[in-house]
């Protein structure tokens, strides 16, 4: 049979590698992280201390959340350049509602997130209805929302959030060890249960079963990893609430993208929008939803940043926020051409970038060097990814 002759050309190694949506998967990034840990750890004994790693965990959340939003549009093969400005603007509105108008923190948060959603809706409508390239729409957003931020902040330029207020306390809340361990046990338990359940369902459906070793290995790896994180962070102030929030966002977005029709369609549009349209997928509606999600997550990231700073000022969401958020997504393995990558990219990528930033600051290295090193890492990450993909495609 001709087909079996064909099949010989597909060694298992290749198919294994490709089954991960990010080409070589996340292994190069993990390797990079280990390299970073070794290099900075040997240069400065502070780097791997519990205190510094806790600071690092705190630094991840804001930009990581913005990056998560950017991944939503990157998966469609589009780009969102406005995320930084949107995060700043929404944080400013939050501060104005909460501090200047004395409204409750909850209302302020809801208004800020709603503003993010509306901005995303505007971007999405301009992109789908006016047929403007997403690059241009969000470039206009980058400039315009930044302008609006400066406008609403007015002459003062800075609004301080009360230190003992709910919003500022968000980034100064630490989980007691029992709560952290409970979360670890829950996550590992749910993962293991779903893995076993999945095997049972597959067996009942007479489908080929993945090797049990891999399942055991994955669960054990997860348990060790989460345990190590909790152990290290509990040695200092505890697991920061901010990290839990960010982690929960990453995991839920990943679950949604992998297991719902919505997620499947997002990947389909990113892979081949025309094919998706012919298959009856509501491409326009999903594109708008992706932009709304992107800006809402940007707003939430801005909120987290404001919480950490306990203030909103003219540079909120400015300078390198956007670029780092995009770089994090790309380093984590999300393709700029759409359809490839997972939300975990935001976590991995921002971990790489923040580790470099953090390590360089500890070493008192000028930010000029920091930018150049980040650039090299970004370029290397993309190069590894595209080389591996070229190697695996025929």
């Amino acid at each position, binding site marked *: 049979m001709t087909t079996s002759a064909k099949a010989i050309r597909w060694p298992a190694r290749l198919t294994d590698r490709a089954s991960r*949506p990010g080409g070589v998967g996340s292994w190069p990034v993990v390797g990079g992280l280990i390299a970073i840990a070794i290099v900075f750890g040997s240069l400065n004994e502070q780097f791997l201390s519990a205190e510094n790693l806790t600071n690092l965990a705190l630094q991840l959340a804001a930009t990581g959340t913005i990056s998560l939003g950017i991944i939503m549009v990157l998966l469609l093969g589009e780009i969102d350049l406005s995320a930084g400005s949107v995060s700043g603007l929404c944080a400013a509105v939050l501060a104005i509602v909460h501090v200047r108008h004395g409204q409750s923190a909850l209302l302020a948060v809801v208004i800020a997130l709603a503003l993010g959603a509306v901005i995303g809706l505007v971007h999405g409508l301009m992109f789908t209805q006016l047929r403007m390239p997403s690059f241009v729409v969000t470039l206009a957003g980058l400039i315009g929302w930044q302008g609006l931020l400066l406008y609403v902040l007015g002459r003062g330029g800075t609004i301080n959030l009360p230190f003992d207020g709910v919003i500022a306390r968000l980034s100064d809340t630490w989980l007691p060890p029992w709560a952290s361990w409970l979360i670890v046990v829950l996550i590992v338990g749910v993962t293991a249960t779903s893995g076993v359940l999945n095997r049972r369902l597959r067996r009942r459906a007479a*489908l080929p079963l993945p090797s049990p070793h891999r399942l055991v290995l994955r669960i054990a790896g997860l348990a060790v990893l989460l345990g190590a994180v909790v152990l290290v962070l509990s040695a200092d102030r505890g697991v920061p609430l901010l990290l839990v929030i960010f982690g929960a966002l990453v995991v839920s977005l990943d679950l949604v993208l992998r297991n719902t*029709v919505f997620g499947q369609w997002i990947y389909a549009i990113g892979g081949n929008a025309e094919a998706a349209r012919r298959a009856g997928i509501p491409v326009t509606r999903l594109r708008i939803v992706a932009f709304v999600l992107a800006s809402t997550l940007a707003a939430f990231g801005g909120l987290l940043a404001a919480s950490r700073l306990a203030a909103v000022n003219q540079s909120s969401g400015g300078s390198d926020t956007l670029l780092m958020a995009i770089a994090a997504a790309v380093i984590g393995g999300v393709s700029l051409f759409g359809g490839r990558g997972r939300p975990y990219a935001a976590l991995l990528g921002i971990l790489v970038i923040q580790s470099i930033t953090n390590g360089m600051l500890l070493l008192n290295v000028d930010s000029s060097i920091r930018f150049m090193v980040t650039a090299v890492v970004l370029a290397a990450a993309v190069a590894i990814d595209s080389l591996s993909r070229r190697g695996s495609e025929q």
Partner: protein
Amino acid sequence: MFAARGVSKRYGAVRALDAVDLDLSAGEVVALVGDNGAGKSTLIKVISGAVTADEGRLERDGVAVQINNPHQARSLGISTVYQDLALCENLNVIGNLFLGSERRRWSLLCKIDMERSARALLSSLDVRIQDIQVPVAMLSGGQRQSVAIARALVGEPWLVILDEPTAALGVEQTAQVLDLIRRLRDRGLAVLVISHNLADVRAVSDRTVVLRLGRNAGEFRTADTSPEAIVAAITGAAA
């Protein structure tokens, strides 16, 4: 039994189709051949609902049917495999087979259910793909074509239209795809194949319909006809 009667279509001053007739029946492979600009593509676009004819009638079992858009064609059981295949290269085989018609329970994907159906469908067509969890980008041209054809069967159609299914395929992969087309016929489907390749047409079709300059230019039982006669009909040389 499906019939197109007197179908005409104009694009501005150009008569792409001029009163063309076409009959298709279950368990038969019909090859639609003709030179470039003969109207083959326009005819399948009319049948698959991508364009609407100016004149003419489409009939299913003798009853007139309206096909104004691809959706209507699909709900009438007409499935089209376009030349570009319209696959999402980043999705795996299962994702492509069920693209746009994913099995779901409340918006959650029924992955196991889909995988089981996908395996059953592929093995019933004797399409062998070692790992159906890999992105389609990793498959060979013939395997991709097979996935696209298998996808056309997901909605249980009775007519499958294949646009140049063997273009850009190697010899071995062409043989695979032709095998697959025979299996569609053995399932009792009506199959309409557009092809430039007369060798493939001879290998797979029961009947050959020739279009020339938008008109019917001959209809042959493939097995009883010499290639020369078909070429003569295509080029318009006196046969």
